[in-house]
């Protein structure tokens, strides 16, 4: 199978400024030499405690944050080397879903405005009707009727909002979807619905996922591979079942032991 994404020795340090002149005396190593690869159509889980650099890693892969060193090879091309102008065409193929659906949708836009924004950026030539058709299709893909297009985000529940953000990403027909704790802020019953939706969409559209979570149950349920992160480093990685059955690193064992045993 084709490797859609390969990350090599990726680093992102944040300077901690001290003193009058703000000289960077120390660095917070948010992402510290991370390497992994992801096959097309598969799901890679990223687990670890809060503040271990999962979200920074995700944003760095999408080049929402510029990395300090290392390579991100997406579809055979190193995107860390691309200029801001060149990156725009790549952005279409990699999208992100954020954790908090209340924060990730601009409250002043209608659903149509939100979902169509990417389309309008990437394909200016498309007619209004075409855009409308695509947006309506994307909305139906995530299980929302097209009548809701003129509503505002505040009129929706958390689960519906998360569906809107999924539609916003999917309308661009991406190949890689980064899911940054997409269900952590939802009710348990809604979590299952959204997860099932994501799994269905993956099968239908042959999507590749990077799934960031701290709920190990869900990770075990949907991920093919899993990487355990601690302090910006990947301490253990491998096939999900293997890692869950016989964790090698003591930190992984702590994580597994501390997870509440919920049947899923």
């Amino acid at each position: 199978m084709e490797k859609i994404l390969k990350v090599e020795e990726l680093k992102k340090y944040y300077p901690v400024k001290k003193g009058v002149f703000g000289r960077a005396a120390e660095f917070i190593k948010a992402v510290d030499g991370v390497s992994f690869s992801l096959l097309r159509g598969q799901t890679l889980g990223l687990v670890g405690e809060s503040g271990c650099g999962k979200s920074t890693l995700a944003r760095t892969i999408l080049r929402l944050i510029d990395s300090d060193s290392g390579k991100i090879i997406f579809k055979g091309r190193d995107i860390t080397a691309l200029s801001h102008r060149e990156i725009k065409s790549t952005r279409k193929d990699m999208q992100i879903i954020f954790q908090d659906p209340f924060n990730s949708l601009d409250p002043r836009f209608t659903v149509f405005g939100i979902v169509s924004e990417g389309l309008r950026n990437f394909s200016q030539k498309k007619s209004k009707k075409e855009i409308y058709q695509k947006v309506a299709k994307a909305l139906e893909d995530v299980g929302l009727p097209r009548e809701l297009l003129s509503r505002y985000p505040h009129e929706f529940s958390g689960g519906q909002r998360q569906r809107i953000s999924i539609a916003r990403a999917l309308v661009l027909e991406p190949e890689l979807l980064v899911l940054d704790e997409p269900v952590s802020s939802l009710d348990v019953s809604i979590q299952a619905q959204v997860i099932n939706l994501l799994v269905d969409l993956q099968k239908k559209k042959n999507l590749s996922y990077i799934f960031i979570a701290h709920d190990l149950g869900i990770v075990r349920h949907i991920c093919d591979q899993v990487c355990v992160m601690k302090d910006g480093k990947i301490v253990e990685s491998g096939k999900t079942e293997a890692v869950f059955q016989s964790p090698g690193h003591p930190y992984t064992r702590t994580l597994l032991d501390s997870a509440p045993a919920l049947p899923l």
Partner: protein
Amino acid sequence: MESSEGSFKKGLRKLRKHRLAVFSFWVLLVLYLSALFAPVISPYHYETEKRAFSYAPPSRIRIIDSEGNLSRPFIYKRNFQFDQFYRRIYQEDKSEKFPIRFFTRGDRYHFLNLFETDFHLFGVDEPAYLNLFGTDARGRDLFSRVIYGSQISLSIGLVGVFIAMLIGSFVGGISGYFGGKTDSFLMRFAEIIMVIPSLYLLLSLRSIFAYNLTSLQMYFVIVVIMSFIGWPGIARIVRGMAISLQQREYVLAARSLGCGHLQIIRKHIIPHTFSYLIVSASISIPGYILGESALSLLGLGIQDPYASWGNLLSDAMAIAHIRLHPWILIPGVFIFITVMAFNLFGDGLRDAFDPRSEFIKK
């Protein structure tokens, strides 16, 4: 979280309960409407002068004539004599009544550059001279000039604030969004403008431009100067909001949807500062009106024969004139009323919409 619409309606309801703000709103509405319909409302053209009526006091409008009968409002024609200091002493000639006519004909004018007419809301027949607020040195009707002057004085505030808001929100948005060196540079520049006392800045900026300009040029020069002084305050506020907005996830999402930086500032950042901008605009408009008045009062702004409240007041700079002809202070009353109304209305707006607390809540 609340919607923009929902909180707007709620704010409007709160605003309606704020009595002073509602009252101020109506005062402002009347003032702006009378500025719009100035040629209709004022009985004379602002340039119409009758030298014989120099510094004539306000006309006495009567409803009871010399025989003690009730009649429709009328005035008497006035004649003058000189006293021993060659001051004009006006006396009413009670032989003939001149009723105040409504919807009458008078000086010709172009209404809003659309059509020419001589229609006036009210007036009197010649040779009587109706002066609700008295006349100035050259015998021009002060009421008409105050109404015409409000066109300049009131619009300069709106236009100036609008331009200052455009510049301020753009610079503030860029500054807050990009942060770092861009931010330091832009904000230090804004602070430099802010720390210079505004009157000196006003005068020194005025000195950049030629002294003798046409009235239209002068108008734009004043607007440019005023908005140049006004934008840093707005920019600082917008910057503060942009810093916090820039960390929202929908801004990141917009990045991954292929939006450029400027597009994000324009579509996802500045619109969220609108509620604050509108409140701060209504509070800062008085500053623009006062600035125009200050320039015109000093003879550096709108020039005679055009009227603005500031240059009408410049007549009142000599204390002797105020003692002898106190009615020439009336334009000052209008400035006072307008500034108060804007302040009270702005206060009401702020209380009702309270964008800062709303901002924290989000």
